[in-house]
């Protein structure tokens, strides 16, 4: 009797442990076997930070997720990497395209081969991919420029807005949203031009445009820049001793930290590449597992806990506001 009991307990124990190891093994194998690859645009501090986020995801999930970096920003390099990944039969490819249109045939090839493709910063080609993940709606982000500029200028005075180029759709969307918000919320503020100024994505251009505007509109009280060259505006203002003029700009800690610290940029706007990378790859992982990404899905990264999905684009709300106090916390 006793022996039988011991035996049956033992047997049950063995059976249980077999079942337990069996199931954990099966579960672990399924996740370990998933390969998700993120192809970034190029090697720079922005994408180095994104890599940090993806390494974090690798630790959190235990899946095989890694980053591939092209040698240069040339779209042909991204296509070559993608072709190689397709023939290796990875499970999902995430990509931040240099030239979204040029990637479409290769994306199609990948999807035909059963690979999930998730993009970031490419809402224009959302119809051709499984999902596009964006840090925020352009309008929501654009409003922040208007909000902060109004706040800095006390709601009155002349201001001017910059974009990288008139053909850059995201910059234009931010600009228009900012101007619209200012018109509604700060009616005493006056835009000196009906069109945005172009800084052509260069520090030189931003600097010389600013000095020209200062000459033509000496009463100007504020600038905002949708491209990341607001530091050149701040520098021009410092050189012309016009520190009374406020600046709000898209900002990178690496180039704008000093201007934020001395107050010549009032507030900097950005989003965290690490979180964007994390959310994008997490979305790809969910798709590979056969789970849906829909409105309300939690992509686990800060700002992407409750995404809104519309027309194949998952929007988070993850703007990052830099001030003199927090700028030193970031390294990208």
């Amino acid at each position, binding site marked *: 009797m006793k022996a039988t009991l011991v035996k049956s307990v033992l047997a049950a124990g063995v059976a249980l442990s077999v079942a337990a190891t069996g199931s954990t093994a099966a579960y672990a194998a399924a996740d370990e076997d998933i390969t998700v690859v993120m192809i970034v645009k190029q090697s720079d501090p922005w994408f180095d930070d994104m890599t940090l986020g993806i390494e974090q995801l690798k630790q959190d999930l235990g899946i095989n997720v890694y980053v591939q970096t092209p040698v*240069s920003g040339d779209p*042909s*390099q991204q296509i070559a990497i993608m072709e*190689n990944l397709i023939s*290796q039969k990875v499970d999902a490819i995430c990509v931040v395209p240099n030239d979204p*249109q*040029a990637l479409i*045939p290769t994306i199609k090839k990948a999807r035909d081969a059963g690979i999930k493709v998730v993009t970031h910063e490419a809402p224009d080609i959302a119809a051709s991919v499984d999902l596009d993940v964006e840090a925020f709606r352009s309008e929501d982000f654009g409003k922040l420029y208007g909000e902060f500029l109004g706040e800095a200028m006390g709601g009155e005075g002349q201001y001017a807005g910059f974009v990288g180029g008139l*053909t850059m759709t995201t910059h234009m969307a931010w600009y228009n949203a900012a101007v619209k918000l200012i018109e509604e919320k700060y009616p005493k503020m006056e835009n000196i031009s009906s069109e945005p100024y172009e800084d052509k994505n260069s520090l030189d251009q931003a600097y010389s445009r600013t000095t020209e505007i200062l000459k033509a509109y000496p009463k100007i009280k504020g600038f905002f820049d949708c491209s990341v060259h607001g530091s050149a505006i701040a520098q021009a203002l410092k050189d012309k001793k016009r520190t009374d003029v406020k600046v709000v700009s898209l900002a990178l800690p690496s180039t704008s930290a000093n201007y934020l610290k001395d107050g010549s940029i009032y507030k900097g706007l950005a989003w965290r590449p690490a979180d964007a990378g994390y959310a994008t790859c997490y979305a790809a992982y969910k798709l590979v597992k056969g789970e849906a990404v829909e409105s309300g899905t939690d992509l686990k990264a800060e700002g992407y806990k409750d995404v809104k999905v519309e027309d194949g684009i998952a929007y988070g709300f993850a703007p990052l506001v830099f001030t003199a106090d927090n700028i030193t916390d970031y390294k990208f």
Partner: protein
Amino acid sequence: MSKINATPTPINYITGDANLNALLSVFVLTALICALAFGDAMYSGANLQSMAFQIPEFGFVALGMMLAFLVGGIDLSITANACLSGIVAGFILTGSWLPGLDEGMRIAVAVVTALGLSTLMGLFNGLIIACFAVSSLIATLGTMTLYSGIGMALTGGRSVVGFPDSFTAGGIACLGEVPVIFIAFVIVMVLMAILLERTGGGRRLYLFGGNPVAALFSGINNFRMNVATFTAIGFLAGLSGLTIIMRVNSAKVGYGDAYVFQSLIVCVIAGIHPAGGRGKVIGIGITTLLMQMAASAFTILQLSPYTTKLIWGLMLVLVLGLTRDGRRLLNALRAPFIKNKTLTDKDSNPGEADNG
């Protein structure tokens, strides 16, 4: 051994050339290492096919750069030329230009225009270099900026998209399992090898590249040589441009900029002498394959771009080193067997001056 130059056979075509010897050794070594390390990941049908799809657009650029090297020059404008002819073809394909043509005509006109335009751009390069006797480096640096600038003005930096499916089908079409664009590339390569190595014009090109002064005094028209070479490069750039837009279904300024630098590496590894007059087409073929295999391997290994660059550098040094020492070794080995004749007679190829 003593009949190397008399009857060229496929074997001594390669073994008679120290550069190709070294290159082939490195290639076989890489292929073996890849087989051991990656096995199926490298040699699966899918991966081989994927490599064959990727090679042509770059291969045409490398062949063009080879021609420039053969006359002791360089052509930095190849990819700018390829992009601009691609953009013009793109405008015709989408129907923005010459609307009203039916689809078949559009494709025909686009292809002819792209090749014609790229050849003209090459001719323009050649004329600048020959008429004003400027170095090709400066001339093509200028035209590179010019061609990109025209492309920017036409497109405003945006992509030209939306080609007919029957055109882009060419970029994914296969004959059996072999991509059609790869077959086209091989045909162009073979034609070029025949033209360069088996015709009088080709011989004159090597001679002109090796020693322009001597060429001049032996009655070769140097002006015509320069113009013809750069015109041919233009044509190859056009082929590259068409391959690109066929494959990526869009045309944009700046696509393939990285190919210029890569093609320089390929030419040097392939044993095309930068000072002119030496090198074979087959070298470019082998090296392009080598580069593509290495690129596949780098992706499998998940290497960072810095490591990738480092390995290219090492490979460059390795091949250059093997070439120099390999030649010395070869001479030393041959010396006992060849008593009465000088070594340089044996080792030199047509049009090649031995200074190793």
